[in-house]
């Protein structure tokens, strides 16, 4: 096990929240590729262990293995509310299988304005808003909390990920519903 991997594991253990890979590279004074490689190796080494690596495109964090979920819940005595209504489930599914995704794309698929439900999911910390590098509107992506609640280490571990992702990716060509602008608010959570 290489030194940089040890350091990353230790940092993630101490920090207890999602850590941007970019920031890891800065702190460790290595390039992002080296970080990616170390993370890949760490992930492999954690496979089948009591601690797992959760990741999205930008960040990584550590979490307790889902196999221990029941026991951990018993000692933490914490209650999670994982109930989502049908609208919430649909919206979250689109965001999980097609992230990052625009509000207009979500509206297009669901045929309704998803403003309220997006705000609700943002407040619950299940999705987050990121700026769209290509232009107007915000992009939405799943949070680490959502991945953790689902018990998956990344979106690729979701059921039928490949086929659903492909189906959702292909529709882009068909044009979007030019709905109203995104009105869930424009503040960024840079926390």
């Amino acid at each position, binding site marked *: 096990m290489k030194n940089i991997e040890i350091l990353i594991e230790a940092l993630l253990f101490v920090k*207890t*929240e999602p850590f941007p890979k970019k920031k890891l590279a800065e702190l460790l004074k290595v390039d992002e590729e080296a970080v990616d490689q170390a993370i890949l190796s760490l992930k492999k080494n954690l496979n089948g262990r009591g601690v*797992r690596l*959760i990741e999205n495109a930008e960040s990584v964090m550590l*979490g*307790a*293995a*889902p*196999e*221990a*979920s*029941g026991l*951990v*819940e018993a000692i*933490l005595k914490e209650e*999670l509310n*994982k*109930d*989502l209504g*049908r*609208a919430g*489930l*649909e919206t*979250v*599914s*689109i965001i*999980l*299988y097609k992230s990052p995704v625009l509000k207009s794309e979500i509206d*297009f*698929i*669901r*045929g*309704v*304005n998803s*403003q309220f439900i997006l*705000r609700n999911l943002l407040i619950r910390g299940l999705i987050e808003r990121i700026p769209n590098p290509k232009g107007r509107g915000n992009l939405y992506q799943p949070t*680490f909390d959502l*991945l*953790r*609640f*689902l*018990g*998956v*280490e990344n979106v690729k571990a*979701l*059921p*039928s990920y490949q086929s*659903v992702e492909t*189906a*959702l990716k292909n*529709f882009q060509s*068909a*044009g979007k519903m*030019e*709905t*109203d602008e995104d*009105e869930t*608010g*424009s*503040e960024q959570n840079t926390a």
Partner: protein
Amino acid sequence: MESAYRVKTGSFEGPMELLLSLIEKRKLFINEISIAEVTNDYLSYIKNLGEFSLSRTANFIMVAATLILIKSRSLLPELKLTEEEEAGIDNLEERLTLYRIVRDASVKIKELLAGPTIWERPFVRNRQIVFSPDPKFTITNISAAIASVVNNLPKKEAPLPKVVVKKVISIEEMIESITKRIEEGLKTSFKKLSGHSDKIKSKEEKVYIIVGFLAMLELVKQGIVLVEQHNNFEDISIKTNHLQLTTDPSSRDYLLRGRPTTNN
């Protein structure tokens, strides 16, 4: 009876959900023919949308527009549609397919949520807290920040977005034009009517269905007018915020009889 119906209608949040459920109830595949078959069910559903907010009603009406085109063409195959109208039809089929994929995925997501969690390490800091202010936290900045927070609070009832209203209103014109086109088609091609796919039906039945369909279009138009009114006169009372199409029992009865009775 009335309230039982409301419970049923309240269960659909959006047009895709409703449309898909109508198609699946008849065990049909998603294609133009099956969409045409459930159009009347769909339209009579939105006629009873009384319990929904205006924005939801607008969503249902917008999809109704495309359904009307599909249905019109299924009744009168010689009806020429514009390129844009054709595109709208293809689009709806695609959206419906996508929606079904998402809905099926959401069932699995629900199962996962009910399953195990990956727990995070709780946040605890046993360190001595050292007051470390951000130099940007000044009275001026804080007072600007709270002003922007207050400013960004979502308004209690967001008015219908202009784009949506414009679309809904243009649907009214669309219905008018399609009505005209169908009526003309009825006159000029009465002979052809019995000639297409729906072979089981007699000419008279066919005309009856079309007339029923046209009457239904009238009802949809009334809903559109309400959307328009609501937007011009923001402070219309709560009651009229909702789509209130005619509930004249005789007209409903008429429409019900006008519905095609294909069994698949």
